[in-house]
Structure formats: structure tokens, C-alpha cells
């Protein structure tokens, strides 16, 4: 790809800029931008880089808190976890590239999010991923699953960061746009966080990492456009990852930081060299001069346009302190990385690029960054489903068949086929992962007593049915996941995946989901510290179900006091914490057993959520309880079945109560936990004192999952159903 000869509004359109945005550039510059300059504007003003449609609404999130060191706006959020340590984390999408080229798209998604974390001075210690695929019956789905999973594993395994958990959903709404959201969590010294703002003029700008090639040009622009039938042709805009280079880059970057040479640093992610140098200079309120002839190049004859727009992977840009370039050279040579001083910071407030001795770009930085367009896109209140009349929800004709069908449905079946391809134990700190039977992943902090709980969550069918309640629920469920393992939920990263924001109904989904999330974050003291927005997830005019994924981190002061759901023992009494009203709207029972996708999602009572969660966490912390599972998809029946399977012991559920058994067992009421104890009476008394609804709902023992007079399923049959679907599906069955 080369820059066109003339700079016209037509070229701007090809680059994804609107006609009025082109006019705005003309007004800001008082001249026509040259083709290279137009390229810079097009990527910096893309939705992906500028958040021009979402920024106004993202401001509604609470972002401060006593533990927050760095909120949104940097490469990743930074949160204090005591003892001079900080956790650094972010979640980011790589949806469009993964649909076009699943292996490389997913792999480079993992690479990109890791760079965001180690750029801040943190060593990556855990990865999670949230995946949404189309209908399993869609002809593309199997190939996409295989490619994405292999790509995530291929990259994370090689770099040597454990992939601890995540979620995988299937729905026809993602047939034309899959979602690949990757989260990375790192550990840093709280006093040694690195930022991107260039601190002064006259400092050397050092490029290091892989060479720049012609791959990924205009990736950020692609990520900000809808797909059509020609999207296959966008394959050249997908980057190619090299996890070995990333591993070297991590070690070299951390060594360079430890040497004391780094004044500011930024990875080259979306929009490559352009966004990294523009952001560093822009945030530091300085200028930057680059000599592009010095950029390490993979191929000959690259134009300035290609170098500035390339999204070649595994590259970093650092501004070094005066006189410290020799430290850099020594470290880069040790790790075998290409490196070059490609320019200096200036006091001009401009970005000046030279190529073959000529100035090829000279722009003021303001219009590229701070003065980028900010839209208040028109939106309408999105339609929401009416509450479902429970009287119209029939019980299963065959209870046993219904249980087996639910536990084997694509969303609930075991994802062993996926997570056995991920290294979950490297770094030797993994206490709980996808295999463990726990609601969140758990890693020790550097081998000590302290641990971090990590999760990712969203229930897109709830958000589709009611964006505000669904947004609330995504946050609440992530908070619940962390609580269920004994963690104090401390902060959130969000990954907002939606359709085209230029359509008022989609914009309405975005606005209302953000408002719901923000309300839950405020009520639960759960600040948002980083995030990513992925819009234009549409193909042929059909948008994905709104999917605001919530990644979250919790703190466990002493990992000896934590919980999972694989520790059920014979004779334990099962206690249900939280109130059950039989909420069946948009439930999995309704979808999978009755074939209906309708009804208002279960509302989240945030006060009850907090009360119930604090009570359960207190039980775990006091050592009174170590077997806990939160209730979510499929309700009590599925939570209990999962607990029985993970613990390899049968259990009997009692259904006596005011609710019809199917509403009680499959209702998806929020804010609930299933806990197990050999000595329940003290727990029940404590709950009553705390104003928490609690009831005994069963007992562990035997080798069947059963409810008297309703069903009795041998555990092994349940296991075969749960474990069987995914391997059979991937084998082409």
C-alpha cells in the first residue's frame, strides 16, 4: 500500500474519515494535509484511537478510589495492593482481526494486551480471555474456535504467562463478528510505575524490538469499520505475531526500566509508530522530531506512510534520560533486539518527520490528540423486553433430559477442550485456574500468602434484553465471582463491544449499558481503571448482541482463606444465600429447553448483592466456609450440578418452598451463592443476624445428582454430558 498522489476529501473517505472531519482538518491546519499527514489524522481520529463516540459516556464511570494509582487514560490501570506492590491490568479486544485470520488475530491480541501491561513497568503474571463465537452450526464457527484458541495458546504459552480463565459463549448473533477479548494482569512495584508522557524537550527517542514491515497498515481504521462481503480482502491489515520476540521484549524492557534509563515509554500498538510518538509528545506537551531513515525496517523501499502506519508487532518506543543511550544499547544487544535512536523530543509542540533528508510531515500535535473530534451521537432509548409471566413458563416434560441438555449446552458445557491448550501453571503461582472448580482464577503474589483473584464476565443475552440491567449485571457478576473465592473486589477493566454507534439504537445500547455498569460500580465501590471500546461489530447491517465485558481483580490477603466449589464433602449441608423469586426472563432454561429468547433479565438489587457478598466473603475469611459457588446461568440446578461434578460427589436438592420446582431450580435471580458446610446452624444464625436470606437446600452424598420425585442423574452420566459436547463438536460431530 502506498500513499496516493493527491490529497482529496475522497482519499480521506477511503481512510475512514468523514467529509466533515476532513473539513475540520483543513480548518485546523489552514491548508490541505499531504497524504502522509492525512494518514496520521485518519488513524489518530479513528474510533479505536480517539474514542470519539464513547468518550463522553465513559466519563460516567467511577474511576477513583483509595487504592487507585492510575485510572483510565494510560496503557493500563494501576491499583495498590499493599506492601509496596501494585496490580496493573487491562482488557482489550481483537475482534475484527480474529474474524479475518483467527490464529494471528487472537495471538496478536494477547501480545498487544501484554505490551500495555509491561509498558507500565509490570511483569505480566496472568492472562484471561472472553470469547464469543457464532452458532455452533454456522459453517465458519468450528474453524474460528480452533484458530482463536490455538492463537491464544500459541502466544501466551510461548511468552510464559499463565492463561488462568475466561468465558466462551456461542450465539448466532456473533456469526458475522466474533469477539476476542484478552485481559492481562501484571505485578509492579507501586513506586516504579512508568508512564508515556515525554517529560522534557531534547531527549533521545529510542525505537526497540522487531523491525517495521508492511503488515497491519490501517489496522486501527479497519477496527473502526463495519464488515461487508469484501472483508476477506482485509487480510493484509491483520498483523503477524512473534511471541518469542515478545518474550525478549518483556525482559529487555523490564531490564531497561530497572537500569534507571527510562524517562517515558510507550508500546507501538494500534496505529503503530504514529500513535506512540504522537501520544508521548502530546501528553508531555512537547514536540517530537523523527528521522524515519533510522527506523529499523524489515524490507527495502518502505515509504514514510508505510512506516508510520505499520502495525508490525513487538515494538516499543522509549524516551531515555540524558546520557543513558549506552545502557539501552547494552541491554538491546544482550537480548538480540533491533534498536535505534530515531529522533528527539523538541519544544515546538509539533510532530516533524524527515525521510530521505526532506521534511515529509509537519503538524501541530494538538489537532491530532486533544482536539480530536468528540461526538455526542444521537441515541434513542433502546427497546427492552417486558417482564416474563412465570405462569407462562412450563416445567420440563422430562426433568432428567432437561438437566442433561442444559449441562451439555454450548454455553454451559465443559471448555476443557479449550483450556487444556493453555499453559495455566507457568510462573508457579497458580492456585486456581479453569480446571479447578472456582468462580475466579487465583494467583499467588510472588510466592507469598497474598493472592489475586481474577475474572471476566458478561451475559450478553441480558444486555440485549435490557442494556441498563444487563450492564449492571455484568459488573455484579464479576464482583460475585471474586467474592466467591474470598477476594475483596478492588477494580474493573471494561471491554465494550457493540455495533455501529452511528445508528441511534446501537448508541442507545452503549449509553444505557455504560450507565448500568456505572451504577453497579458505584454501589459496589468497584472503580473502572482501564478499558477498551470496540464498535462497528456489524456485518451486512446486523450488529452483535451488546457485549460489555467486565474484567475484574480482587485481593485475597491470605490464600489459605479462600474458597472454590470442588471441596464438597459427604454429609455437607447445602445452603442457598440470597432471595429466589424464580426469575426466568432471558434465562438459559427458557432458551435451551423451551426455545424462547425473551423476557426482562433478572434485576440486580445492588444493596442485596453487596450484603450477601460481604456475608459470604466474611464466612470464607473466618475459615467457616471453603466451598462456595455463585449462581448464574442455569440457576441453582446448574450451580449444584457443577459443584457435584467438580467435587466428584453426589448431592440431593430439596425443592420444598413457595416456588414451583422449575422456577426455583432454573431461575436466574441475582446476588445468590451456594455454600456448603458440615456445621450449618451457626452460619444460618449469622445470616439471620446480618439480614441475609438463607435456606438449607440439600445435602451432599451418594453418587447421583438428584431432587426427590423430580430427577436422579448418575454423576457419571452428568459428567459425560458436560464433558462430551465440545470435543465431539470440534471433531466435526
Amino acid at each position: 500500500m502506498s500513499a496516493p498522489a493527491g490529497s482529496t476529501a475522497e482519499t480521506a473517505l477511503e481512510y475512514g474519515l468523514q467529509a466533515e472531519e476532513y473539513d475540520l482538518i483543513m480548518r485546523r491546519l489552514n491548508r490541505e494535509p499531504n497524504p502522509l499527514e492525512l494518514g496520521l489524522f485518519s488513524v489518530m481520529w479513528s474510533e479505536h484511537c480517539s474514542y470519539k463516540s464513547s468518550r463522553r459516556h465513559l466519563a460516567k464511570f467511577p474511576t477513583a478510589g483509595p487504592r487507585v494509582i492510575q485510572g483510565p487514560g494510560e496503557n493500563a490501570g494501576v491499583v495498590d495492593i499493599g506492601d509496596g506492590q501494585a496490580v496493573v491490568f487491562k482488557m482489550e479486544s481483537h475482534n475484527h482481526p480474529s474474524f479475518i485470520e483467527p490464529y494471528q488475530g487472537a495471538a496478536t491480541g494477547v501480545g498487544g494486551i501484554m505490551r500495555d501491561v509491561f509498558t507500565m513497568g509490570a511483569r505480566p503474571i496472568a492472562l484471561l480471555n472472553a470469547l464469543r463465537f457464532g452458532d455452533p452450526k454456522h459453517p465458519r464457527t468450528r474453524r474460528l474456535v480452533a484458530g482463536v484458541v490455538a492463537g491464544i495458546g500459541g502466544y501466551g504459552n510461548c511468552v510464559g504467562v499463565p492463561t488462568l480463565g475466561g468465558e466462551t459463549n456461542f450465539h448466532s448473533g456473533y456469526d458475522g463478528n466474533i469477539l476476542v477479548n484478552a485481559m492481562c494482569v501484571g505485578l509492579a512495584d507501586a513506586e516504579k510505575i512508568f508512564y508515556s508522557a515525554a517529560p522534557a524537550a531534547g531527549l533521545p527517542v529510542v525505537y526497540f524490538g522487531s523491525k517495521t514491515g508492511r503488515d497491519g497498515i490501517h489496522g486501527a481504521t479497519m477496527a473502526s469499520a463495519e464488515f461487508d462481503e469484501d472483508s476477506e480482502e482485509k487480510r493484509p491489515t491483520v498483523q503477524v505475531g512473534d511471541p518469542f520476540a515478545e518474550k525478549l521484549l518483556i525482559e529487555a524492557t523490564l531490564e531497561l526500566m530497572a537500569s534507571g534509563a527510562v524517562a517515558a515509554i510507550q508500546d507501538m500498538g494500534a496505529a503503530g509508530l504514529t500513535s506512540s510518538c504522537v501520544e508521548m509528545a502530546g501528553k508531555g506537551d512537547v514536540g517530537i522530531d523523527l528521522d524515519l531513515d533510522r527506523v529499523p525496517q524489515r524490507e527495502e523501499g518502505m515509504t514514510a506512510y508505510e512506516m508510520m502506519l505499520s502495525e508490525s508487532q513487538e515494538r516499543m518506543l522509549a524516551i531515555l534520560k540524558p546520557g543513558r543511550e549506552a545502557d539501552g544499547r547494552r541491554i538491546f544487544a544482550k537480548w538480540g533486539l533491533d534498536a535505534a535512536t530515531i529522533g528527539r523530543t523538541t519544544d515546538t509542540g509539533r510532530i516533524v518527520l524527515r525521510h530521505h533528508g526532506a521534511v515529509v510531515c509537519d503538524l501541530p500535535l494538538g489537532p491530532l490528540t486533544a482536539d480530536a473530534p468528540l461526538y455526542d451521537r444521537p441515541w434513542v432509548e433502546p427497546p427492552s423486553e417486558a417482564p416474563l409471566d412465570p405462569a407462562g413458563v412450563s416445567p420440563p416434560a422430562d426433568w432428567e433430559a432437561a438437566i442433561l441438555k442444559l449441562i451439555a449446552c454450548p454455553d454451559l458445557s465443559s471448555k476443557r477442550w479449550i483450556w487444556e491448550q493453555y499453559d495455566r501453571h507457568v510462573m508457579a503461582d497458580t492456585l486456581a485456574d479453569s480446571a479447578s472448580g472456582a468462580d475466579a482464577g487465583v494467583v499467588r503474589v510472588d510466592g507469598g500468602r497474598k493472592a489475586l483473584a481474577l475474572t471476566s464476565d458478561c451475559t450478553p443475552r441480558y444486555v440485549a434484553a435490557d442494556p441498563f440491567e444487563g450492564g449492571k449485571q455484568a459488573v455484579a457478576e464479576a464482583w460475585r465471582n471474586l467474592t466467591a473465592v474470598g477476594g475483596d473486589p478492588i477494580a474493573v477493566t471494561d471491554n465494550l463491544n457493540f455495533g455501529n454507534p452511528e445508528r441511534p439504537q446501537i448508541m442507545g445500547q452503549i449509553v444505557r449499558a455504560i450507565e448500568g455498569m456505572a451504577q453497579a460500580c458505584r454501589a459496589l465501590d468497584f472503580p473502572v481503571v482501564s478499558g477498551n471500546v470496540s464498535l462497528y461489530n456489524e456485518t451486512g447491517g446486523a450488529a452483535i448482541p451488546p457485549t460489555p465485558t467486565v474484567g475484574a481483580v480482587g485481593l485475597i490477603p491470605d490464600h489459605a482463606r479462600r474458597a472454590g466449589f470442588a471441596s464438597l464433602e459427604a454429609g455437607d449441608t447445602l445452603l442457598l444465600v440470597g432471595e429466589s423469586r424464580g426469575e426466568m426472563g432471558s434465562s438459559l432454561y427458557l432458551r435451551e429447553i423451551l426455545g424462547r429468547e425473551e423476557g426482562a433479565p433478572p434485576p440486580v438489587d445492588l444493596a442485596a448483592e453487596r450484603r450477601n457478598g460481604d456475608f459470604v466473603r466474611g464466612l470464607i475469611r473466618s475459615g467457616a466456609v471453603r466451598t462456595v459457588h455463585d449462581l448464574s446461568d442455569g440457576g441453582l440446578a446448574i450451580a449444584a450440578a457443577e459443584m457435584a461434578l467438580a467435587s466428584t460427589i453426589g448431592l440431593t436438592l430439596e425443592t420444598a418452598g413457595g416456588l414451583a420446582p422449575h422456577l426455583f431450580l432454573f431461575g436466574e435471580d441475582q446476588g445468590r451463592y451456594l455454600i456448603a458446610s458440615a456445621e450449618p446452624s451457626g452460619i444460618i444464625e449469622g445470616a439471620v443476624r446480618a439480614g441475609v436470606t438463607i435456606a438449607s437446600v440439600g445435602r451432599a452424598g451418594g453418587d447421583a445428582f438428584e431432587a426427590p420425585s423430580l430427577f436422579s442423574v448418575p454423576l457419571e452420566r452428568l459428567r459425560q454430558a458436560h464433558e462430551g459436547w465440545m470435543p465431539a463438536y470440534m471433531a466435526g460431530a
Partner: protein
Amino acid sequence: MKAAVVVFPGSNCDRDCQRAIETSTGARVERVWHQETALPAGVDLIVLPGGFAHGDYLRAGAMAALSPVMAEVRAAAARGVAVAGVCNGFQILCEAGMLPGALLRNAGLKYVCKPVDLDVSNLQTRFTAAFKDRRRATMTVGNGEGNYFADEETLDRLEGEGRVVFRYAGNPNGSARDIAGIVDASGNVLGIMPHPDRAFEPELGSADGALLFQSVMASA
């Protein structure tokens, strides 16, 4: 007691090995860059850690086998110093010709990460003495190329000489005769595919790996 953990570009279990050895034996551990031409004086154990040395490009372990430090590792083993290659380290030892056979792509053609039960098939080696009468150990594997292969004659000889030290009870990768770990003819060089360095404390799911490091340190 002293151990060295070699760090190749792309090693990713070097820190794990260091902590595992320190925690389970109290030995002092130095990490040694692969370009070094000398090892720390007086080491009792040299570990080649897991990871993807040189990205596993060409073949897993092929380039690392040619690193400058490997001449020293070979010489140390000849002097009687214990050498353990874990996962990628096992692949490197095979590529370096210090152990027979090769590690091929897993039979299932996919990377596999899971806990495995191991039979400790020879309790008389310097790597297994501390297992005493424990014939069963649990560790996790994490590999894409862990499928041990050697010709029938070599396999017969390994078995006949008691050099198959660990065997899978539930083969995760198609390894010949369920082989998970072997030693060389001198008994000083161990290659093991599962990770003792991820199994050194009960909270990690198993502390059986600690026995391996304790065995070798006791033998020094």
C-alpha cells in the same frame, strides 16, 4: 549447596526453577545467561528450564543445544555434576546428544496442559532417592512437543538399564512406552517432561517435585 539455572533467550521457567529449588532445598541458585562460557564454581546441580528457547524455531531445543554454555554443561556432567532438563530443557538435552531419542509433536497435535500421575519407575537414581517408597507422583505437563521417541533398541536398552525414571500413568502426548523422564548412562543427566518446578508446595496442587530437587541435593 548451590545450583545454576541456565537462561536461554525464550526460557520461561527459569524463575520457577530458581524458586522451586530454593524453597524445597534451601540451596543458593544462580541464573546463568546462555552466552556464558563458565559456570559458577562449586555447583551441585545445573537445570535447563522449560520454555521456548529461541522460540522453538527450527526445532525445539535445536539452537539452544549450540549455545556457548552447553560445552560447560557437558563438561560438568562428565565431572559428576547433576544436570536436569525440564520440558524444553529435556528437548535441549536430546538435541545436544546428552540424552538419547527425541521429543516429537504430541500425538493429539495440540499443546496439552494438565496434571498427570507419574510412576516413579526407578527409585535408585540420584534424582529419585527422596521419593523412598513412593511409587506415584503428580506433576503437570505443559507442552506441544512432549512425545518421547527413540528406536526400539534404544528403548529396550533404557528399560533394561533402569534408565526410565518416570512413566506416565495416563499418557498425555503419545510418548513411547509412556516415558516421561530418563537418565543418561552415567546417571548424572535427567530429562523430564512434566514440571517438578510447578509442584513444590501443596497449594500448587502437588509438592512431589520438591522430592526430585531434594534427592539431587542430597546426592551432591
